[in-house]
């Protein structure tokens, strides 16, 4: 009975929980009262949720995906010596690696622990070498300047999106005058489509905290804030626990680990404002004001929170630091390319076969990420474009998929590295609609301080809405482009400066789609509601009436079982698509 499960490990990140991880956990516990049950953060294979690792009594590990309450008995029967190995669900075992491409092609530095340890256990983090970096610094009395030098050798640049060299930023604050300095961990991950910070804070909070300790030591800060989105309750909970446990263990507070170094951290929950990802706006928010950016200089590194020198580092940047100190800056610099060192974590989503969190060395091409790791399109339709960098980024067309993942190379396409959202789109996504979607977002999120951003984004949104409704003119497209350039040039902060990117890149690569909307009154992807119609095709219709019952505006009428009588009233129809979704016989045509 050596195959008997000794330990069962269930991935419980937010997405795992949403996919049913708690229920799976409880089912295993009920079925295996003697096995040790553990939970870990999200390993990043979102397409395989719920993910369960079973370690048998010989110590062999089996990683299973897409586990639910119903298929647990058949998975378990193999381990109880009765049934077959469930290869459909097996992602990886010692002898089988078929499904493991997704993991083996990655280079995991930042995500080294995520999905491997219980995020609520300080003990497990220490067993995996945690807090050794800060201990080494204190024990060997390595000077802050040496740490900055090491990080400079590593060549790491800010992972929040802008890509400013971390060591350079630190040295400004290190040399700034002041009795008190602050360190802020920026966990206000506002880009729709990005969730790497959430995953790190949920799945490996101690590595972020250790990163904060190293950064604080380097710049001479004694107080830190972790600014975390309120929409991430589990991240707040796990990071809060990490802070408490670390304080208890003498890793935070006065005389850390018995040495002359003091630092403590407080969590500040964001309240939902995209602009607070911008440093000066984030500071205003912590100070209790409306989160509006201010003119720089003075830069926060010199004059920031409460007027004191302040460093703001992104969660992912911080999570790299312990690794860099332990393995040396030059080891880190060996990964990646000349201009962009190390790795970057991306949140792969959209019409992709294997979506989730992926960490790749800089220099890998977009195509490699999409096809070698992501497994290509999930719909059978070819991938048309990939959106990088959320509302501040842009859409890269298929023809540019060989672009390497580097700050400068991606900027040259008009997109940006951004915080790491990577949303894949096939022919059924309308590029004009995507541009309108992001403009709607930035227009709402604009803080209103700069006229160009406040009014320019609104005018752009209006123009895009007109085009999507089929009421646009060719002149509108030119106006749109002109305003886009003005907003980019005349806004104070990153929000306004980058807000036009989704429009400019789609205009650059998918201008034909704009023209089709305007000149042919046609949405090639069949998305824009003003340009499509829904029609019931009697030859396929069975007259079941399900569409009538789900139509929110009562636009569908007909007699049951008489297909030829069923019609959609074009006047009433709002083109919401509910009928298409519920139709059992594919009888509704969208054109």
């Amino acid at each position, binding site marked *: 009975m050596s195959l008997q499960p000794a330990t069962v490990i269930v991935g419980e990140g937010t*997405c795992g929980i949403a996919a049913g991880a708690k229920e799976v956990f409880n089912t295993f516990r009920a079925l295996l009262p003697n096995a040790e049950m553990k939970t870990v953060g999200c390993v990043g294979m979102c397409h395989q949720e719920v993910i369960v690792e079973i370690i048998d009594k010989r110590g062999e590990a089996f990683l299973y995906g897409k586990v639910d309450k119903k298929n647990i008995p058949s998975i378990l029967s193999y381990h109880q010596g009765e049934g077959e190995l469930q290869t459909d669900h097996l992602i990886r075992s010692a002898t089988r690696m078929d499904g493991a491409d997704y993991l083996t092609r990655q280079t995991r530095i930042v995500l080294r622990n995520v999905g491997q340890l219980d995020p609520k256990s300080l003990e497990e983090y220490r067993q995996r070498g945690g807090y050794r970096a800060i201990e080494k610094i204190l024990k060997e009395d390595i000077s802050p300047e040496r740490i900055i030098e090491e990080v400079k050798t590593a060549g790491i640049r800010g992972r929040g999106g802008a890509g400013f060299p971390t060591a350079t930023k630190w040295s400004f604050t290190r040399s700034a005058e002041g009795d008190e300095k602050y360190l802020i961990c920026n966990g206000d991950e506002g880009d729709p489509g990005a969730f790497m910070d959430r995953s790190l804070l949920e799945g490996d909070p101690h590595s972020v905290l250790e990163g904060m300790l190293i950064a604080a030591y380097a710049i001479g800060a004694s107080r830190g804030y972790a600014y975390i989105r309120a929409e991430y309750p589990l991240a707040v909970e796990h990071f809060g626990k990490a802070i408490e446990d670390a304080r208890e263990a003498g890793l935070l507070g006065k005389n850390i680990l018995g040495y002359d170094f003091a630092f403590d951290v407080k969590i500040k929950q964001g309240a939902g404002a*995209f602009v607070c990802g911008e440093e000066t706006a984030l500071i205003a928010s912590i100070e209790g004001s409306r989160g509006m950016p201010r003119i720089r200089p003075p830069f926060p590194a010199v004059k920031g929170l409460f007027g004191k020198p302040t460093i703001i580092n992104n969660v992912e940047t911080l999570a790299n630091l312990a690794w860099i100190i332990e393995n040396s800056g030059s080891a880190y610099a060996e990964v990646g390319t000349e201009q962009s060192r190390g790795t970057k974590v991306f949140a792969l989503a959209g019409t992709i076969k294997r979506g989730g969190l992926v960490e790749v060395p800089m220099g890998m091409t977009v195509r490699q990420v999409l096809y070698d790791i992501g497994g290509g399109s999930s719909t059978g339709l070819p991938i048309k474009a990939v959106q990088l960098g959320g509302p501040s980024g842009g859409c890269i067309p298929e023809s540019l998929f060989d672009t390497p993942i580097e700050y400068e190379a991606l900027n040259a396409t008009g997109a940006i590295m951004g915080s790491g959202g990577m949303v894949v789109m096939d022919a059924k996504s309308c590029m004009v609609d995507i541009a309108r979607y992001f403009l709607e977002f930035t227009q709402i999120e604009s803080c209103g301080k700069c006229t160009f951003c406040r009014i320019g984004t609104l005018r752009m949104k209006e123009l895009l809405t007109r085009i999507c409704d089929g009421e646009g003119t060719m002149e509108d497209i030119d106006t749109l482009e002109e305003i886009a350039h003005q907003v980019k040039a005349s806004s104070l902060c990153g929000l306004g400066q980058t807000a036009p990117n989704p429009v400019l890149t789609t205009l650059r690569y998918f201008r034909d789609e704009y023209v089709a909307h305007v000149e042919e009154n046609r949405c090639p992807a069949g998305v824009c509601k003003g340009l499509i119609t829904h029609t019931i095709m009697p030859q396929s219709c069975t007259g079941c009436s*399900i569409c009538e019952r789900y139509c929110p505006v009562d636009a569908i009428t007909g007699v049951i079982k008489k297909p030829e009588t069923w019609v959609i009233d074009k006047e009433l129809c709002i083109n919401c698509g509910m009928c298409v979704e519920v139709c059992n016989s594919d009888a509704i045509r969208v054109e």
Partner: protein
Amino acid sequence: MGQNSLAAAVDKLLVKQWIAENGSDASAAVPLLQAVQNEYGYLPREAMDIIVSETDITASQLFGVATFYSQFRLDPVGRYVIKVCHGTACHVSGADRLNTALRQSLGITEEGVDTASNGSYTIEDVACIGCCSLAPVMVVGDETFGNLKGADAQRSLKKHARRHGEFLPGHEEEKAEADAPQKKSSDTKKKEVRQ
């Protein structure tokens, strides 16, 4: 719209306790409002008045903060809030349709209204929940539902209502639900969990 009947009775001692915990200087504004909203689901005027009179925060500052951040609401909400994710991945996979379907289930027709007339549910659009590979996603109370089509959203809401002793206003939908044939494909794909 029955919104006034949803107004909360504010406990002054509770507000004072939050002030004691979070401090009374300007930087306490956001955490204080978060505490108020946690308790009442929105920011009752009375609670804000108490904060202004008991702390150094001015009325204009507090109101400025309350109206700046999208988390804060000045109107009462239903007993449960439905957060419909409108992240990029959810948008391209039909998040708008969830809104249409949910509004239909809750009998909300008036533009600008987002709470059902019986005070049961409030629909709220949120930027991104970060479960992109389960798109489109909604969170009802604290239960997350993913891989939803419009009809799935209605069914999940119905289930939630049944489990929590709520009922959905309007009868047409209930009838439709009882009559609607069981859908195969989307039902098996749909994931659901109680937290």
